């Protein structure tokens, strides 16, 4: 407001000065020169803006007409040519005034922009220094207030991740009062706040993951150490007992030593399962290769020679079944499923192992003719430390949990189903990861 008054005062003053100068030099100069003096005055006044320019033009026209255009000291005009001078004075006043005004607007806008940019920069710095999401929100409120001059509230999305397209929203009471520039600024702050919050979230997640990994590593080191310390005495017990068994004089003693060896074997299998469960639960990816399943069935059956005594095993695999699996883990899975079947079914009942393929992967089944699944949800049998109603069968309830862990690690499924005609079927599906290999070219190359 004050600036405007000053601009008008300058307009009046310059026109007055031009008039005085014109009167003083009147005897020596022409009317055109006096008009030039007024143009100078208008030019000078118009620097104060469009309105001041127009005021100066109006005053100049009036003064010029009154003091210098014949008939002098009246506002009457005898020569029409003077009207052109008046028009030029007006146009120049208006044009220069509006040019100056536009320049000034642009200058103002760029100053605004600069302020917003540096505010955004300052905000980014503050947000980057924040140690939690609350710190980021506080920085948002401060910097939005600095630029917009209004208080704001910050809304956070439930999942703040860098992939979320708008994790942070800023609400301002009178949003419509914002200029486009301010609006842009608020948007930019929201976006930067989203990035900062996402980064913080990631950092927190990474820290948690590192802690978990450390705990996992500790657990697995501990278990390996424990299992090594258990394995060595077990190996000695097995070895010594077999030595004694070989030289035992009577059947009774041999039976006793057989039992020791058998039980040591069982302990050793439990240990193996304990280690296997830490391995699959550590989340390490299985080392998958294309393996004919029958090879693993054979290895598992050989390992289970003793527990399987009294159970005829039928393997139904009319052709070679390829599965994309970690052979060591899946041999363990088969061992557990077959051992589980042997443990929970009466001696003399057959165990059937089947393998087949469909378009998506390999299917393995272990079927028995035992009492069937325990009452309750069928999946409970895969829970860690779950033990069937026939707890007399022994075991700690790890075997099937290991099976599930191994199936899941392969992105596969495992199910316990009632078998038609009595008994239970355990079915594992291993989805393919890529197409099974073709072998023709290999045969040729070896020649």
């Amino acid at each position, binding site marked *: 407001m004050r600036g405007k008054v000053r601009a008008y005062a300058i307009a009046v003053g310059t026109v007055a000065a031009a008039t005085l100068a014109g009167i003083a030099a009147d005897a020596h100069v022409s009317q055109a020169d006096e008009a030039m003096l007024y143009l100078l005055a208008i030019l000078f006044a118009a620097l104060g803006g469009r309105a001041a320019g127009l005021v100066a033009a109006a005053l100049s026209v009036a003064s010029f007409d009154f003091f210098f255009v014949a008939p002098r000291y009246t506002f009457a005009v005898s020569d029409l040519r003077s009207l052109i001078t008046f028009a030029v004075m007006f146009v120049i006043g208006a044009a220069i005034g509006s040019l100056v005004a536009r320049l000034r607007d642009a200058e103002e806008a760029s100053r605004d922009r600069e302020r917003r940019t540096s505010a955004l920069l300052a905000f980014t710095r503050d947000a980057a220094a924040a140690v939690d999401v609350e710190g980021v929100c506080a920085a948002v409120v401060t910097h939005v207030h600095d630029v917009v001059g209004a208080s704001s509230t910050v809304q956070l999305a439930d999942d703040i991740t860098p992939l979320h397209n708008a994790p942070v929203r800023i609400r301002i009471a009178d949003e419509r009062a914002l200029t486009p520039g301010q609006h842009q600024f608020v948007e930019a702050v929201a976006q930067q706040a989203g990035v900062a919050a996402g980064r913080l979230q990631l950092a927190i997640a990474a820290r948690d993951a590192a802690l978990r990994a450390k705990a996992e590593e500790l657990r697995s080191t501990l278990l390996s150490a424990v299992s*090594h310390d258990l*394995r*060595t*005495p*077990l*190996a*000695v*017990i*097995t*070895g*010594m*007992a*077999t*030595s004694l068994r*070989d*030289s035992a004089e009577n059947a009774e003693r041999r039976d006793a030593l057989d039992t020791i*060896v058998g039980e*040591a*074997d069982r302990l*050793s299998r439990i240990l*193996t399962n304990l*280690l*296997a469960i830490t*391995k699959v639960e550590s989340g390490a990816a299985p080392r998958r*290769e*294309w*393996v*004919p399943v*029958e*090879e*693993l*069935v*054979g*290895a598992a*059956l*050989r390992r289970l020679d003793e527990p399987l005594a009294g159970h005829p*095993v039928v*393997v139904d*695999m009319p052709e*070679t079944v*390829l599965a994309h699996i970690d*052979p*060591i883990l899946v*041999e363990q899975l088969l061992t557990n499923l077959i051992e589980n079947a042997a443990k929970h079914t009466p001696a003399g009942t057959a165990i059937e*192992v089947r393998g087949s393929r469909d378009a998506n992967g390999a299917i393995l089944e272990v079927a028995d003719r035992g009492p069937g699944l325990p009452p309750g949800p069928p999946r409970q049998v895969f829970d860690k430390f779950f033990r069937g109603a026939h707890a007399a069968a022994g075991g700690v309830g790890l075997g099937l949990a290991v099976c599930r862990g191994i199936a899941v690690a392969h992105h596969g499924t495992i199910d316990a189903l009632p078998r038609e005609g009595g008994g239970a079927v355990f079915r594992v599906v291993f989805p393919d990861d890529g197409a099974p*290999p073709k*072998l023709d070219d*290999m*045969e040729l*190359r*070896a*020649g």
Partner: protein
Amino acid sequence: MTDTVLVVEDEAPMRRFLCSALTSHGFRVAEAGTLARAHELATETRPNAILLDLGLPDGDGLTLLKSVREWSTAPIIVLSARDREDDKVIALDAGADDYLTKPFGTSELLARIRVALRHARGLRVADDPLLVVGPIRIDQARYAVTVDDRAVHLTPIEYKLLVQLARHAGKVLTHRQLLHEVWGPRSTEQTHYLRVHMAALRRKIEVDAARPRWLTTEAGVGYRLLDE
């Protein structure tokens, strides 16, 4: 002449078991609980076979394996736990002859040592045209294979596989060793080809391919053609 077996094992009770089992079956035994002592005894006693535990207090058993291999062909049998398959494969590819997975009994121990000693003596020489393992007869002069006097028709690859396994009957051969022998040095990573051809071979040789009597799988390690 009695054979000397060097037992390298840091756990004293385990060492006692190994030594007593070996001496009671007619072997002479030298025992070491550390890598350093094992190095000394290996050069001093010139053992006919070495039983080597890989995890020793003063270093990795692999170093002993490698240094002994530089001057001796005496069979080396590695003792290792289950779920250490990678270690076994590394040891076998580095020149170990076989391995025993703890826990094991005396019969397994003695069988492994006897097979290893027999191979070391070269009782099965590669240029003998007739290879016989159990019911399997391979006539290398005529590329003919019979099982229980029944002629078996093998593809060239199956034949090569069977010959390799029969030459080393009783010994484990790693995937890498078999791939190298049959397919050549550039194919040692293509384990799945080997597995599929082994499956086919087994279906031709075995009565029940899923419960093999002769061609057994050593999970995560390789294959073995049993010879008893």
